């Protein structure tokens, strides 16, 4: 393969090198993600807090309204994503802050890993954690409120994945932005939620239908495009700007 690449003309080698760089970058991202997940599995500090928080909010909702069938049918998507967004910020808050003791963040930035790979790795780890919390809360939600969300499991999973990726990309980059400021835990939700409104709105619209066991209709499917667009735009923007955020 190496010989093949060198025998080609210059643009092709450039492309091969770029592909090699991409593969290396992905490997580095996975490495960072694995490191974060391992640390989280050992301490379980973020995920336990997040899960407990999600269950408590789900419990509180039962007092806020009469959890009868038709009321819940309208509200379910919105309720779920409020829980996901709140519980998610608990995970995201810790993402960069956990590197502060012992100057781990400086070491990570100084390591021979591009900041974009570092960011992508952290985002991946957060994504896995938040998605896990979401799946557990979905299970609890289904039991508490007698909702048969599993009827449309695969489309729902797609919406969850897309929505959660938007949440984690914004959350991770803002976690990096706010890592060194006072009132970090307070600032993150204040900055993240307004910016997430389009993604959350799309995810809520889609989930409301799917959770109630209805297939996606055409007029709701437009939200799927919007969700994908949001993810693509902010992933690209974060990858471009993360160097500025972490190094300056």
């Amino acid at each position, binding site marked *: 393969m190496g010989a093949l690449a060198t025998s080609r003309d210059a643009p092709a080698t450039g492309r091969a090198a770029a592909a090699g760089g991409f593969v290396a970058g992905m490997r580095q991202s996975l490495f960072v993600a694995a490191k974060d997940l391992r640390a989280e599995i050992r301490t379980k500090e973020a995920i336990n807090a997040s899960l407990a928080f999600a269950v408590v909010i789900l419990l509180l909702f039962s007092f806020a309204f009469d959890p009868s069938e038709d009321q819940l049918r309208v509200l379910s998507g919105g309720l779920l994503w409020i829980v996901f967004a709140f519980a998610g910020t608990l995970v995201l808050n810790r993402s960069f802050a956990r590197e502060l003791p012992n100057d781990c963040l400086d070491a990570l930035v100084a390591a021979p890993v591009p900041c974009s790979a570092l960011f992508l790795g952290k985002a991946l780890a957060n994504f896995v954690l938040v998605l896990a919390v979401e799946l557990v809360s979905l299970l609890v939600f289904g039991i508490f409120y007698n909702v048969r969300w599993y009827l449309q499991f695969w489309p729902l999973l797609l919406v969850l994945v897309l929505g959660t990726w938007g949440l984690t990309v914004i959350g991770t980059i803002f976690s990096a932005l706010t890592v060194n400021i006072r009132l970090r835990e307070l600032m993150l939700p204040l900055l993240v939620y307004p910016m997430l409104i389009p993604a959350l709105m799309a995810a809520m619209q889609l989930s409301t239908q799917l959770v109630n066991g209805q297939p996606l209709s055409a007029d709701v499917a437009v939200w799927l495009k919007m969700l994908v667009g949001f993810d693509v735009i902010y992933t690209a*923007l974060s990858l471009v700007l993360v160097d500025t955020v972490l190094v300056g």
Partner: protein
Amino acid sequence: MREKVIYALGVAAALLLARNLYSIFMVLPDEASQGMIYRIIFFHVPAAITAMLGAFVAAFASIMFLVTKNFRYDSVAVSVTEVGLAFLAANLVTGSIWGRIIWGIWWTWDARLTSALVCWLLYAGYLMLRHAIEEPTARARIAAVFNIFAFADVPIVIFSIKWWRTQHPQPVFWGGGSIDPAMKSTAVLNLVALMLLAAVLVLIRLRQEEVQREIDSLRRYAHAVV
């Protein structure tokens, strides 16, 4: 020199505003279906346009700061955002009062109202973020990144909420709606007046920001010399 520019712009804004207020209240007739209240439009719409222009300028200044690392751009970004937020607040409040008469409610979760509110929150977040960071270089850098994110969110917010629901009337000035030419020219003139006013406020705020930066560096210098 700059003082003179500020005074000149201020006088121009005041004269134009006085002229516009005269024609809004004394010359133009009541609107057929809405009566007097429609006159709010002469502030409501220009304030929104001024605020939107502010968002563009702030995003441009933020990008330029990241490219050049020239702190003047950072000052421009914060000044323009602050003034733009004030104008957007004026837009929201006048709209709410107008809606109370025309729709019978103070607030409705309609597309334009909701997106204006979300944009207001986004840029208020920008100012809060700046407030929370002490160190000037980090503050300028992080605020610039946040501003770019917020600016990228504005079109997404507007389009997504538009899909969601719409109650607000379509723009009457440029949307092909029928409007009296006298009303249109007054609205355009008032847009010019409000932009002049915004420019004056931005220049004052800009000077303050630069003096503050100078003071901070002098103070650091003084502490270092002791």
